[in-house]
C-alpha cells in the first residue's frame, strides 16, 4: 500500500513540474527577456542530458575507455547536421559503436 501511495505521489509531483507553466496559460506573463531566453531551453536541456550520458562511467577519469561512445555520438550529431534524419542518426551511431567495439576499442 505504501508502495502504491509513494508511486502515486511521484506521479503527482511529476505532473506538477510538467503542468506548472502550461496550465497557467497567459495569466502571469513573464518579462519579455525571460520569455526570449526560454526559446533556448531545448539546446540547454538536451546538452545537459546528452553530455554526461555520452561521457558515461566516471566521465573524464575514464576518458580513454569512452572513445567508441564519443565517436558514435559524433557520428550521430554529424548525421543530424548534414541530413536532419533521426532514424539514420541513431542507426549509424549504433553501427559506429558496434564497429569500434568489434575492433576491440
Amino acid at each position, binding site marked *: 500500500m505504501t508502495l502504491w501511495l509513494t508511486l502515486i505521489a511521484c506521479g503527482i509531483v511529476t505532473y506538477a513540474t510538467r503542468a506548472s507553466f502550461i496550465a497557467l496559460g497567459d495569466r502571469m506573463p513573464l518579462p519579455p527577456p525571460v520569455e526570449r531566453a526560454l526559446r533556448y531551453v531545448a*539546446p540547454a536541456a538536451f546538452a545537459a542530458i546528452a553530455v554526461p550520458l555520452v561521457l558515461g562511467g566516471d566521465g573524464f577519469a575514464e576518458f580513454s575507455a569512452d572513445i567508441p561512445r564519443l565517436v558514435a555520438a559524433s557520428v550521430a550529431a554529424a548525421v543530424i547536421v548534414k541530413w536532419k534524419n533521426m532514424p539514420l542518426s541513431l542507426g549509424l551511431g549504433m553501427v559506429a559503436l558496434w564497429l569500434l567495439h568489434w575492433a576491440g576499442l
Partner: protein
Amino acid sequence: MTDFSFDRRAFVDGITTIFPLAIPGVPFGLVLGLIITTNDIDPWAGWSSSWLILAGASQLAALNLIADGASAAVIIVSVLLINSRHIMYSAALRPKFVGMPAKFRYLAPYFLIDQCFAVADTAPELEGSSLRYRMWHFLGSGAFLWTMWVISVAIGILVGDVVREEWSLSFAVPLLFTGLLALSVKNRPGLVAAIVAGSVAVVGRDLPQGSGLLLGIVLGVAAAGIAEGRLEKASAP
C-alpha cells in the same frame, strides 16, 4: 470560437514525427521491467510507475530506491528533483499552448516527456500551423510515446532478460539526446546554451539526484539570453 475537433492528419503527423524518437525508449523500458522483477518489486506497482510517472530516468531512480528500502519521502523528493527539468519544458512551451482549450492545457502536461517536448518545440511542420493542428499533433505524439513506453516496461517484466549487454542498446538513449541536441542548436545563442549547460551538467554530475542537470539548463538558458542580447546589440547599426 475556434474549432478544436479531432484532426486526423495532425494526430498521424505527431505519431510519424515521434516514431524514431520513441524507439530508443524500448530497450530502456525493457531494462526497467527487468529491474522490477529482479528486485522483487510488486510487478503491478512497478509497471504502473510507467503510466503514473511516465519519465524513465526518474522511474529508474525510484525503483532502485524502492529496492534499497528508502523512505517514501526520499523517493518522492528524488523523483521531483530529477523531473524538475520539466518545469523548464513547461515554461518554454507555454506561449505555444496559449489559446488552446483549458482541458487540453491540463491534459497535455501529463504527456510532456523529453521527446514530446522536442517534437512540440522543434518539429518543422508545426511552424505557422493552426492551434488545432498543434494540439492534435501533440496528442498524437504523446499517445504514441505513452503506448510504446507502457508496453516496453510490461514486456520487460514478462519476458525478462531480452536485452543483451554486449549489444550496448542502452547507448541508443545517449545517441537520441545527442541527435536532439544537434537538431535544437540553430544559432549562436543556442550553441552558447548547449556549451554552458553541457559543461555545468558534467561538472555538477555528482550533485544530489540530477540537480546538476537543472542547474545546467537554467544557466545555459540564462547565458543564451545574454548572448542573444549582446549579438543583437553588436549587429545593430
